[in-house]
């Protein structure tokens, strides 16, 4: 039996330009054959499975039609949300199971990076039919195909892309592809829906490619009265070195006004990704034939990925320059061509150079997590191990990691060296070291100083320290907190204690003992680990489970500063249930709050400067005598200033 090669189309970047050209040749042939009624049997005996976790009509139907037209067959689950996904089956398991039923999987999913996950777990090839707000490569193939058929060579064409440029995944794929082919882009966002920065940064860093953003009025007036308002750069693809000294976005673009616009690409508002739909729709533009009446736009074709809402006038439909229905019709021959090309590649045993840069290895566990909320690693985190590369937007003063799944960048504030167990605030002096640590596999990254210290890292350099609380004072503070918690509780026997790992959890156990001594009832106690991947709530005292629902929780941490840790801890608590009330107890409040959170019980308020750190040291069991409990205040010495000073 024939098999398709394990070739996955996750991003339009997976296809080289000659490969795209070959697919277009095949699409031309299939379009002609379809017109003449010539049947094809190229994919005879092969089965395509379409897994759509998000509703779609035209994409799914055009894939299914293409497969049938090639003589293959299709199996489909119309609504994945209602089937196995609703039973809690992971994406990885689903694609592995379906791989036994089909030779090719087409997947659409609401999370960014889902197609990458499917491709990695399925033994059969996977085609991305849209993942979150990321990419939709087969739509891009159709767009490029029509543009090329109408306008010839893509290099040097000027395309105005209008509409929702923020969430439109077809737009992002199209922008990357046009940049690669050497076309010029003018972005015309409607209602403030701009191209996201990560797309711009990536184009600037990886292709040295920039384009200008104008309003629809500016675009119209620039065509009416000269072209001074439009700045375009011819693309000059070249790889920029990492950690270059300047920010690539700040370079002044070369000015070259276009002689004419070749195409308008209009998109609808992605309403399903917005909340206040009516308000956003108010500022949304409307494209009509007037835009085509200037000497510089009269040759332009009008494209739209469909479905349209109100942004494209129906009067245009009869205009020969409106090509959006041809664009939609191209969906079948282009998708036929894609499958046929995969078969051709199988016959020629073409081995694809699939060698992406290896991810950064992190010695500390758990590895950092992706900061992007709709990333697939956030919803399928139980089995996906986050992985990162150095983002191309990184430079001397900015360190960012790019998620290997959703391809979004997360900025890094604190870095650590896993061998020396020192942590640093990232600054430009460190860029050389960080690169070295990545090569050695000794880089650690932290969201906060607190996380770094929880993981056993020490500041790079610390100044003089002094003791601000001794063991007796800490004990008295704990007693006072316990007494207040008992006095406040409607039913002191219903108290449950949750400590933030690790010193908050140690304090929680002390409070538990103190409350038990007073009330005669031992309160249930749990430790909450809020760092890294999924937050974990673990019962202490050998209890199997810890129940959050309906409990009066006393949440305990050692030091409160910005309050972000407590905020994360509360988010994690609510993932486990709905507490009746939460009281916050801290040993030290050092001020500088960044969130509207106030502890109910405070051992001591310590005014500090921002350069100071508070460290709580607690002994366990027999160690208490050797290392007594104490609270230390020390100043951090800024690594930058330290190195600049002559002494």
């Amino acid at each position: 039996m024939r098999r398709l090669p394990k070739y996955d189309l996750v991003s339009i970047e997976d296809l080289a330009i000659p490969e795209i050209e070959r697919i277009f040749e095949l699409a031309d042939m299939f379009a002609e054959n379809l017109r003449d009624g010539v049947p094809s049997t190229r994919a005879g005996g092969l089965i395509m499975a379409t897994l759509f976790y998000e509703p779609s009509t035209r994409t799914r139907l055009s894939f299914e039609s293409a497969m049938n037209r090639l003589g293959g067959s299709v199996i489909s689950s119309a609504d994945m949300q209602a089937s196995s996904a609703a039973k809690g089956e992971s994406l990885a398991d689903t694609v592995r199971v379906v791989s036994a039923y089909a030779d090719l999987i087409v997947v659409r999913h609401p999370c960014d990076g889902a197609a990458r996950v499917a491709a990695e777990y399925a033994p059969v090839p996977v085609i991305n039919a849209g993942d979150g707000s990321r990419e939709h490569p087969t739509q891009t193939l159709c767009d490029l195909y029509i543009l090329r058929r109408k306008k010839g060579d893509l290099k040097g064409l000027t395309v105005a892309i209008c509409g929702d440029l923020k969430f439109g995944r077809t737009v992002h794929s199209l922008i990357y592809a046009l940049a690669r082919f050497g076309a010029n882009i003018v972005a015309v966002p409607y209602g403030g829906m701009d191209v996201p920065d990560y797309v711009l940064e990536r184009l600037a860093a990886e292709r040295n490619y920039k384009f200008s953003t104008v309003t629809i009025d500016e675009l119209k007036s620039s065509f009416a009265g000269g072209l001074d308002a439009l700045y375009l750069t011819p693309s000059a693809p070249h790889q920029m070195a990492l950690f270059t000294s300047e920010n690539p976005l700040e370079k002044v673009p070369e000015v070259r006004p276009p002689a004419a616009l070749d195409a308008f690409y209009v998109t609808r508002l992605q309403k399903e990704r917005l909340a206040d739909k009516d308000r956003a729709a108010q500022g949304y533009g409307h494209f009509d034939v007037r835009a085509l009446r200037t000497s510089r736009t009269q040759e332009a074709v009008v494209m739209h990925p469909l479905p349209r809402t109100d942004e494209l006038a129906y009067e245009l439909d009869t205009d020969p320059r409106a090509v959006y229905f041809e664009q939609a019709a191209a969906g079948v021959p282009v998708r036929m061509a894609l499958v046929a090309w995969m078969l051709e590649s199988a016959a020629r045993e073409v081995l694809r150079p699939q060698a992406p840069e290896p991810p950064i290895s992190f010695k500390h566990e758990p590895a950092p997590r992706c900061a992007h909320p709709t990333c697939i690693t956030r919803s399928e985190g139980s089995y996906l191990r986050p992985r990162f590369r150095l983002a191309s937007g990184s430079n001397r003063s900015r360190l960012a990691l790019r998620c290997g799944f959703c391809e979004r960048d997360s900025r890094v504030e604190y870095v650590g060296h896993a061998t020396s167990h020192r942590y640093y605030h990232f600054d430009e002096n460190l860029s050389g070291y960080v690169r070295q640590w990545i090569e050695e596999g000794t880089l650690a990254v932290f969201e906060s100083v607190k996380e770094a210290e929880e993981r056993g890292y020490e500041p790079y350099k610390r100044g003089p320290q002094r003791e601000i609380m001794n063991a007796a004072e800490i004990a008295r503070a704990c007693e006072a907190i316990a007494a207040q918690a008992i006095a406040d509780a409607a039913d002191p026997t219903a108290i449950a204690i949750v400590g933030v790992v690790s010193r908050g959890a140690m304090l929680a156990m002390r409070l538990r003992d103190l409350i038990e001594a007073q009330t005669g009832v031992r309160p249930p106690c749990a430790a909450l680990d809020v760092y890294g991947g999924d937050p974990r709530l673990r019962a202490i005292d050998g209890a199997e489970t810890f129940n959050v629902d309906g409990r009066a929780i006393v949440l305990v941490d050692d030091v409160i500063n910005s309050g972000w840790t407590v905020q994360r801890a509360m988010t994690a608590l609510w993932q486990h249930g709905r507490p009746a009330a939460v009281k916050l107890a801290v040993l030290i409040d050092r001020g500088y709050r960044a969130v509207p959170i106030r502890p109910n019980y405070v051992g001591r308020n310590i005014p500090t400067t921002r350069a100071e750190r508070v460290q709580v040291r607690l002994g366990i069991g027999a160690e208490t005598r050797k290392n007594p409990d104490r609270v230390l205040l020390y100043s951090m010495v800024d690594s930058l200033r330290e190195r600049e000073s002559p002494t």
Partner: protein
Amino acid sequence: MTNKPALALDGEAIARCVKRIAHEIAERNDGAGNLALIGIVRRGATLAERLAQALRQDGEREVPVGTLDISSYRDDGKGEPGDPRLLGRNIPFALDGGHVILIDDVLYTGRTVRAALTALADLGRPESIQLAVLVDRGQHEIPIRADYVGKNIAAPTGQRVYVRLAEIDGVDAVVVGGEKS
């Protein structure tokens, strides 16, 4: 409870509160770039618009305004189904590195604000989140505190405090007690 409704704040008093809070926000965030207002749907969103207007009138600055609907993050089972990260917001600006003023009409248990903090943290990494409310009833069940308060009203448990705003209810008033109209 059949007590008579009492007017706690009239239209003028509400206007003064909004103006004062706007002043405090401007003062405390003096020189801070990236200030943004996010109102919790619905009356918090209306108040956010009024605060933005007050900041503008003061000649202070133009501040972007967004809205957040936390119904999908609620912990009482009344929320809408669906992925909360994709629902219930209109925030046409980036939160990363910014100073966000979260606005609601009444702070009572703190659960709404707790949900809103979770939602905001999901959307980005603001430098800080500050809370402004027209009425703080006290008796918080969660360790939340407001940075800016229009008026503290200590109403007994079970009694209702209504904020009525002209844009939604046709009249500006804060009413304590009485039957729900």
